[in-house]
């Protein structure tokens, strides 16, 4: 028979181990559900299946493509190979402008039409999200 102390220690260890396993499981599980993938217009065009989950699209805002009315803003994101139409109603960050880099978050309606729910603010005009830099190649 084991002493009381050993038993207690064993119980304590099982509790810790159990909670660690539970934690890891929980985190990984919700990680799967909440990951947002980043895609460039070219990647969207070339994929056969339409991604139903929330994604981010990044590239340049095409010159002369921004239209605005009282309800929404529409524009085209390009990576100089392919482009995609974006419609957005919501707050537009200040550094959003034609010819500048942009990252939009939202859902694909088809592989030419993106409904954005958020346009990400950038803190610095020279700052280009690394994803965008890569998406448009070294320019």
């Amino acid at each position, binding site marked *: 028979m084991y002493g009381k*102390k050993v038993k*207690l220690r064993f119980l304590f260890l099982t509790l810790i181990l159990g*909670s660690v396993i539970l*934690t*890891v499981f*929980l*985190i990984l599980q*919700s*990680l799967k559900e*909440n*990951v*947002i*993938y*980043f895609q460039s217009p070219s990647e969207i065009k070339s994929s056969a299946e339409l991604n139903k989950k*929330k994604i*981010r699209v990044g590239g340049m805002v095409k010159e002369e493509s*921004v239209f*605005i*009315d*009282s*309800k*929404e*803003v529409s524009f085209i994101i390009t990576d100089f190979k392919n482009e995609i139409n974006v419609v957005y*109603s*919501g*707050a*537009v*960050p*200040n*550094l*959003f*402008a*034609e010819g500048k880099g942009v990252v939009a978050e939202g859902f694909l309606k088809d592989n030419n039409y993106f409904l954005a729910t958020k346009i990400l*603010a950038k*803190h*610095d*005009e*020279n700052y280009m*999200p*690394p*994803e965008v*830099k*890569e998406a448009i190649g070294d320019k």
Partner: protein
Amino acid sequence: MLANQIGYYSLILGLLFSLFICFVSIKDFKNNNKSVSQNILNLTFLQLIFVVVSFLSLILSFINSDFSNETVFNNSHTSKPLFYKISGTWGNHEGSLLLWLLVLTLFIFLFLIKSREQPKKYRILTLLFQQIIIIGFFLFVLMTSNPFNYLFPIPIEGLGLNPILQDPALAIHPPILYLGYVGTSVIFSSSLAAVIQNYITKDWGEHIKKWVLVSWIFLTVGIMLGSIWAYYELGWGGFWFWDPVENVSLMPWLTLTALLHCIVILEKRGALKSWVIILSITTFTLSMCGTFLVRSGILNSVHTFANDPARGIFILIFLFFLIILSLGIFFVFNKENNENPNNFFWLSRETSILINNWFMMYFLSVVLIGTIYPIFLEVVSSEKISIGPPFYQKLIVPFLIPFLLFMSLGPRLKWIKSKIENKNSLIITFIVSVLLTFFIIKNLTTDLLFYTVLVSAAFFLFFTTLKEIFITRFNNVPQTIAHFGFSLLILSILFNSILSSEIITNIKIGEKYIYSKGEIFFKRIEEKKESNFNSIIAYFEIKDENGRIVKLKPEIRIYNQPIIITSEADIKMTLLEDKFLVMNLVKGKEYFNIRYQIKPFMIWIWISVLLLSAGGLMSVFKQKYEK
């Protein structure tokens, strides 16, 4: 010019003094004197003076707009107001590292002064470990991020400071945060010294608790300042975005909070020694990761790493060196004492603090994985992902329910063995909380059950702590105030998120936007010229459902150097709610994009964080007073 030279050479002298201090300390360590030699104290003081001189000369270069200095050239401009010229000193990578160094040397000097009653060998070892960190930082600054690089030919004008950083809250945010971060370095060094000297005792716990408290207060206030800034400057109307940069400041806060609680067990009961040491090591490692990750740009993506490989590699090597050193010391010297009183009943103060620590570690793992995983995945599979706020909310919010309940009950328990007293009054408080919650939120949200339980738990903590402050006069006032602050924080955040509403629309000058609960009238704009920016001030009149009119004047600033547009939100702050209006320019178009938000109880979020820190502050003074 001259200031530049003085600054640079003081830095080198400071580094030489580090080596000198190490040498003298090792000699003094072997000596049989009872107290630390006065020479060491003098040398540490001189080292501090050198770093102060270096820092002041950098400030002077910024004030004089001395563009022969590369750091000044990159981050300043003659047209900038004096206040932001000064705060620009630490608004950049090089300057902020110099500030780190300054606080490091300041704190070790304070430590030596404040620890006179402590054993001599322990003090010297702490100094030595701190000097290792200091040497690391000196080398890092001098080799990869020298703030005194010379530029020739001397440029006429600087590049300017990012306007978004030209803000009073952000001017004091880094120094306060650094006081917290660097405070953890003292905890780190002293816990390693204590391990080697086998001095992890109640006395040590009492002595180091002050440092834990002070670092914790600064870290808390520092995070709050950053959050306030994000709220009014970034124009999204939120105060926490689960952005990686925010997460890295939250992580050391979580471990420090855990440490704060279990250092009490060490102080009162002499137990949990190894855990205290592990937490001290983790906290400092996380603090250092935090500063480096933010400053080196690793966080946006691993790719930015490649921009300056020297910095990144130096950081990694230094971090690994410290981690291996500390773990090595921990495993070699840490002795498990058998007489240590680890046995306690399941229902006791010890258990409740362990539960607190479990939650802190859980929250830490969530934040850590959410922050690191995207970087990890990109390295492994070059897939680019981001993890949004839902991830954190889903994993953290439900766990707040048991956390709040334990927080209400835990402090009432006694050490070693306890039973729950005043069961009836607790049950009554609980029922009142549930009923109150139910009546308040029954019409407010769709997810009634979940929110009722969550808000009830928060109210339960709110009432139990309130009762202790006013009726029972429980002996531990600082702790009760801090816990009360926490319950208020959770309540404000919850009601803020449930009751917030927003209108986003694009609007022309002179137009009126009518929505279900009122109307927004865009009267006119006015243009103004300031020394370093032009501003467009818009005049809005917003009518709510009761016909009351609020006038708000959001502003768009077009800075000239560098050319950056920023939005200044206009916020009408009252005790009950904030009315928040921010306007954005969509280039070259006649429409302005506006975002109008009503955010209830916003001010209470800040007040409750202040209460939380006030609890910490009272605890520091209480400790002094009781002596």
